[in-house]
């Protein structure tokens, strides 16, 4: 993938394209890219940036996996290992998964789907990208110049009192990029409300727009809580004022409440756009209208809404009240229902269709399979008595990665293939693309975290890496 992206960044117009002007031929100088307010060009800026971030996060994960081939620490020392998995988490969550589909595909197609010329605030859109780059630069600098070893969750009091690594600089980087998320969310919400073409009523909107709208609401409402939380961590570290550290009179569980109040909705930021992509692609390649349109649209909104009320399921063994745990468990089952509704409707859409297994469709069917596994493993975690045993184990890591890699990355790849001709004016080599799509759906390769020491997983990752390079 990265090879194709760089190629796009350098060689401008498709040679075979007709001489008419398009967004790629509108200007060639660096200023025409870095000062552009064109939503399509900004989408490409994001595409290049997050692809680079995806590669860095992937390198960190690869070293972590290689270290885990043998039990003793041989490739890296424990301190380095801890920094590597933190780097993997921080980069993948905030600099790949959260921005991925909204900033690339959302920026590119949302105005077109609404019949608008651009987003509501084109300059703000460019500002979002610069904030993302600034936040990314600060974070990368902090990760390279010493790193941070708290894990992406920054649990206190370890992060405020015990860790001697670059906690504050990384928090500042995430803080800055958070404003990129907030502004993107704001832009999308306003655009969807105000810039729909005449006659394009809410229930005629493409389902991808619905999912972006739901995502944007979460971006807008949840991200400020993360900003606030990280600010408080920085304040406690820098001034010693007791907020989370019990030795200073603070409460470590307060941090967990605040953090998960952002981070649980954030996992829906990371999966809802993927669900929107699936709703688009599955209809296209089965030549059917979507089954149960209104139910899928409402399911997106329900997920966004209830997603705010389930954060306590990250704290079943953390020492919160038993009765709070009961409520959070029940609400977690409630939020599972809309996801199930979506899966059933996607499956029903295939019924009596005319199904063509092109690469975007293969990724999409892979999404349904892997996301279903990810979603069903969530039932184990939401069950209080079961969670006590599997909490903080590889089971949770696997559940999360089935959703994030098996779900979101598959959907991102599907979307990239689906809209690639629209974005670049060319078609990728379809045979290779299908081959990559099929092997990516192998749980061993796309979710190898669940197989702690499986040599097959490593072999298949190498295989995938080779194929990715080949395309």
């Amino acid at each position, binding site marked *: 993938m990265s090879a194709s992206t760089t190629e796009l960044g350098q060689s401008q117009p498709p040679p075979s394209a007709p001489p008419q002007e398009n967004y790629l031929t509108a200007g060639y100088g660096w200023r025409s890219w870095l000062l552009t307010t064109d939503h399509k060009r900004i989408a490409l800026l994001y595409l290049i940036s997050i692809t680079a971030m995806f590669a860095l996060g992937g390198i960190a994960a690869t070293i972590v996996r290689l270290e885990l081939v043998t039990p003793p620490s041989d490739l890296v020392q*424990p301190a380095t290992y*801890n920094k590597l998995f933190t780097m993997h988490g921080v980069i993948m969550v905030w600099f790949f998964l959260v921005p991925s589909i909204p900033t690339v595909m959302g920026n590119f197609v949302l105005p077109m789907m609404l019949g608008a010329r651009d987003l509501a605030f084109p300059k703000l859109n460019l500002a979002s990208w610069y904030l993302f780059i600034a936040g990314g630069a600060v974070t990368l600098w902090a990760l390279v110049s010493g790193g941070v*070893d708290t894990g992406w969750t920054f*649990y206190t*009091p*370890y992060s405020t*009192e*015990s860790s001697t690594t670059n906690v504050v600089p990384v928090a500042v980087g995430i803080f800055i990029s958070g404003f990129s998320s907030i502004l993107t969310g704001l832009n999308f919400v306003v655009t969807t409300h105000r810039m729909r073409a005449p006659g394009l009523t809410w229930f005629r909107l493409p389902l991808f727009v619905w999912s972006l709208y739901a995502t944007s609401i979460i971006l807008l409402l949840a991200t400020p809580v993360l900003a606030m939380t990280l600010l408080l961590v920085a304040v406690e570290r820098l001034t010693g004022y007791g907020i989370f550290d*019990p*030795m200073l009179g603070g409460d*470590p*569980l307060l941090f967990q409440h605040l953090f998960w109040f952002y981070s649980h909705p954030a996992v829906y930021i990371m999966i809802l756009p993927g669900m929107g992509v699936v709703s688009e692609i599955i209809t296209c390649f*089965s*030549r*059917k*209208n979507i*089954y*149960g*349109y*209104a*139910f899928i649209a409402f399911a997106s909104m329900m997920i966004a809404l209830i997603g705010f009320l389930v954060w306590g399921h990250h704290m*079943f*063994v*953390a*020492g919160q009240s*038993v009765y709070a745990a009961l409520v959070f*468990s029940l609400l977690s*089952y409630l939020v*599972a*229902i809309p996801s*199930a509704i979506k*899966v*059933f*409707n996607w*499956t*029903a859409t295939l*019924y*009596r*269709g*005319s*199904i*063509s*297994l092109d690469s975007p469709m293969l990724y999409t*069917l892979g999404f349904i*399979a892997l996301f*279903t*596994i990810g979603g*069903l*493993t969530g*039932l*184990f975690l*939401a*069950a*209080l*008595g*079961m969670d*006590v*045993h599997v*909490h*903080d184990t590889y089971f949770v890591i696997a559940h999360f990665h089935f959703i994030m890699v098996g779900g979101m990355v598959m959907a991102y790849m599907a979307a990239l293939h689906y809209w690639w001709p629209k974005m670049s004016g060319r078609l990728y080599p379809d045979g290779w693309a299908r081959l990559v799509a099929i092997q990516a759906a192998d749980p061993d390769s796309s979710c190898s975290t669940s197989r702690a020491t499986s040599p097959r997983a490593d072999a298949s990752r190498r295989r995938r890496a080779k194929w990715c390079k080949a395309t």
Partner: protein
Amino acid sequence: MNADFTLFPDQASTTAERVDGLLALLLLVTVSFATVIAMLVFYFAVRYRRRSVTEWTPRIMGSLKLELAWTLFPAGIALVIFLWGAKVYFYIVKPPAGAEEVYMVGKQWMWKVQHRGGQREINELHIPVGKPVKLTLTSEDVIHSFFVPAFRTKVDVLPNRYVHTWFEATKPGIYPLFCSQYCGTGHADMTGWVVVMEPADFQRWLGEASEGSLALEGRKLLLKYQCVSCHSADAHARGPVLERLYGTPVTLTDGRTVMADESYLRQSILDPDAQVVAGFQSIMPTYEGQIDEEELIALIEFLKTMQTGATPERVDTARPPTARRETATNSNGDAPASLSPPGENKPQSEDDPE
């Protein structure tokens, strides 16, 4: 070391049996759902594959009946799982009365165990088979998590707070114990073993490892910290009487009533102003930073056993600790001296056994 890989950990506690029952239900439900979805998608993809580019497809908008069915049916199943999960959870979090009590302190990166008989262990926990054991845990630094896979038990161990968990082992053996909350560089090595013994063997072990009971040690600490200067058995003393205090309700100056449990006693030692007993002045100095977690546990263990007449007589003539501010400045001034307890009370060496 268990070099052999097993899909499931040993099932070695009464909790484990219940959790595994729930696991069976969850596996049944999720595997069925996943299979149905996978088979449908696969079948449709083959049955309705595109045969010609001009193929026609019907326009099917949806069906309210079907939507309701696949909303309500999973919701019903989810409710059953929720209730079953909640039932098992209540079993896990509520220790039965009369359980054997053991105290544990987590720190970067080891587990320190104190038995009521005064036996101390590091990274090992000896318990008898067939008897409920209640653990009271706290941390000296960051958050740790006590996890014994064979018992299906886990609880986050927080600093400045007591948490509880319990289990009843069902078969003798040696089971791994982990810290499951990432706690720093040595987190992966913060492991240990739970040794489940036959009751007779356990009694023998207790006898061999005993160094005088925990409560006795607590009594010494009560004298060492001069608690009895104010907390004498005299009803007119400056502090409340401590005899038979544990487990009884206490009325505070602000009118609230709290239960005098371990957490209350702990807080009253470290932060006496937080919950002052009605009828008393807020004059007790804080012992924060002067008394460590293991001493606190010993002290509280003594308080728990104190019956009428158990308050020791004052044996020294030194001035009792005075008002808060004065003490605070003193302890800032000579912090290193006040932090290190005298030799006979020094806990077992904290050096890594290796």
